[in-house]
């Protein structure tokens, strides 16, 4: 008997691969996408398709240029394009998601060395770039089930045009079903939670970061965002903006968040604190994207110093 393979143990391997994980996240995002199209019309679909296909194209192109194996089938580019378009208003011109995908894939991902080496969440870098370059497009939202423009609840609050849900003519139920102004993929909370539950059940994500993120935003908003201390509308704070989308789908990104459960919890706390600070005192009405990007930069530091409990069988 010869030609035997000799290698060190272990000699067997789990079947799950990268594409298994990425496709699961894509599947988990589908309900929210459907809700987005339902709420904002077919325009939302074109934005999503433009985002996804341009992301795939840039991924393939740049992999070819770098002389790497083209790995578009691992679905990570699809995921980036999808997440980017979920963070856009439904009525943006279609070149906007294309430019966003280019920044996300070429600058935030491939320039750093490709999947696994990027420090910042590519979709969020794309969004941050678009927000800086074309703020008007990025902050003009349309009213649900209508084509007239409307501000988001957080913007109304920031500009002092409405101080509470009653003045906005909205109920918590509208937030759960997505009947409010906002980005395509962030408005329908129920759809997002279905996706998050699916990922959690399949053990693709852990809830340490989302839990810390949402809890701290709720807590700080309850204490400081009301007319008096401990009078803030924390349910509104949790359901509005991109918090649910960001907490479950971007603060859980493997590559750009800490490795350990403890680290993920700290990451979530940081995100929550920054989100609250930006919403309360910042120039923008919403701060989820920036807070995640800022915390991305702290990940190496968190991983360096936060250790799991040793020897815990």
């Amino acid at each position, binding site marked *: *008997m*010869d*030609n*035997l*393979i*000799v*290698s*060190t*143990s*272990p*000699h*067997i*391997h*789990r079947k*799950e*691969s*990268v594409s*298994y*994980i990425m496709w699961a996240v894509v599947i988990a995002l589908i309900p929210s996408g459907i809700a987005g199209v339902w709420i904002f019309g077919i325009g939302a679909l074109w934005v999503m398709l433009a985002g996804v296909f341009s992301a795939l194209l840039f991924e393939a192109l740049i992999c070819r240029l770098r002389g790497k194996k083209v790995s578009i089938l691992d679905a990570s580019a699809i995921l980036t394009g999808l997440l980017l378009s979920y963070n856009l208003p439904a009525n943006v011109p279609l070149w906007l998601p294309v430019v966003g995908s280019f920044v996300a894939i070429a600058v935030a991902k491939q320039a750093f*060395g*490709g*999947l*696994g*080496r990027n420090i910042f969440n590519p979709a969020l870098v794309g969004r941050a770039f678009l927000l800086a370059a074309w703020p008007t497009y990025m902050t003009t939202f349309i009213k649900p089930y209508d084509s007239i423009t409307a501000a988001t609840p957080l913007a109304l609050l920031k500009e002092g045009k409405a101080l509470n849900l009653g003045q906005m003519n909205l109920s918590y139920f509208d937030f759960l079903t997505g009947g409010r102004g906002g980005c395509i993929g962030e408005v329908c909370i129920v759809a997002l939670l279905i996706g998050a539950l699916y990922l959690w059940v399949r053990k693709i994500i*852990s809830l340490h970061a989302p839990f810390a993120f949402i809890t701290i935003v709720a807590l700080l908003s309850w204490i400081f965002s009301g007319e008096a201390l401990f009078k803030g509308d924390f349910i509104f704070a949790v359901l509005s903006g991109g918090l649910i989308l960001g907490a479950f789908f971007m603060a859980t990104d*493997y*590559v750009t*968040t800490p*490795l*350990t*459960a403890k680290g993920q919890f700290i990451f979530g706390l940081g995100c929550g604190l920054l989100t609250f600070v930006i919403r309360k005192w910042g120039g923008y009405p919403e701060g989820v994207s920036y807070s995640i990007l800022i915390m991305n930069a702290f990940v190496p530091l968190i*991983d360096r110093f936060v*250790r*799991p*409990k*040793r*020897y*815990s*069988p």
Partner: protein
Amino acid sequence: MIKENKELTENIAIKAMPLPEKAYIPLIQHIGRPCDILKVKINDTVKTGQLLACAEASVSSPVHASISGKITAIGEYAHPILGKSTAITIERDINLTEEQFPLLDKSRINSFSPDELRLLIKNAGIVGMGGATFPTHIKLSPPKPVDSLIINGAECEPYLTSDNRLMIEESEGILKGIEIIAKILNVKNIYIAIEDNKAEAISVFKNAILNTQYTIRVLKTKYPQGAEKQLIYSVLRRKVPSGKLPLDVGAVVHNVATCFAVFEAVYKNKPLYERLVTVTGDILKNPGNLKVRIGTPVKDLISFCGPLKKEAKKIIMGGPMMGIAQFSDDFPVIKGTSGILVLSEDEVKEAQEGICLRCGECVKNCPMGLTPALISMAVASEKWDLAKEYGALDCVECGLCSYSCPVNRKIVQAVKYAKTKIKR
């Protein structure tokens, strides 16, 4: 979580493998000094169980003839762990009658003091038979008193079932062996730990211990449950500190097969010249649990359990998680050979190694609570101090990190490499 594949052999009763034509007995089959005092020379006729070689050093273990016949060579031969080592070749002489080692006096244990028992065990060449092969007499001489003895019947490696069969078929012998070890160590708390995937062994032992002081601990089936530190934690909730030994927390662990060998040494005067080996794999027509003489060439075992349904692409001594892949099928069974696993091409396809996604699977699965991904990255940039800081030296090398990595990173391999580089 891991596919266990124990169903291939777990219900197959122990069979004695026919005696080999030739046996190759390596002079080192244990952790410690090799046997450097030869008691035989070429052309000598030896009988089964006869002492072949031993050593002056105390951390060593003598080796014995496993068949009766003539010494035809003493020289370099394949070794499943070391690659090559000095071995004594015995060619079987069918005209010689096989030595028998019948059960002697039923109360033999009472005629020996602990020291005499220890010597008997040392002279019988007994080592840890779960695969670690640390000389048993050393483990039975702890420098400080211990209060708990754990008998390891976890057998957590996938595919392997020899301990399981031994527990089902030889419970009485194992219990007598435990009694001897308990007497030597003078311990009162005795636990027999079995994973809950071995229902038959558990029920056999539950009946067998009725009139004893022993406790059975049924453990969750969770690799690496049978690793010493994990087992001590599962049974006693005590943690062996980094760099310390089980006896530092008052515990000693012995494998069930070691207990059985101790029983045979004391009650039958029988040295360790045979052991149970699970010979298994999907491509073997007749896998099984064989009683095999030490030194039997593994190709004999494979052909006895064959024919092969497909070409073998990997032969592993031990289990798939921690076993050692072999260069050929021409190597002998040694005292630590708990299994031989034969895998085909589709089972061993080497996947390409990717860039770490930082998914945290290795962190979640590490039984020692380390961050394997970070250790492997520190190794990649040759930062040995950082690898040490991340706990490389505490790694038990169970292999779960590499097993669970979605991009096939060779994590445990990197940690093992780090261990050789870190200055202790």
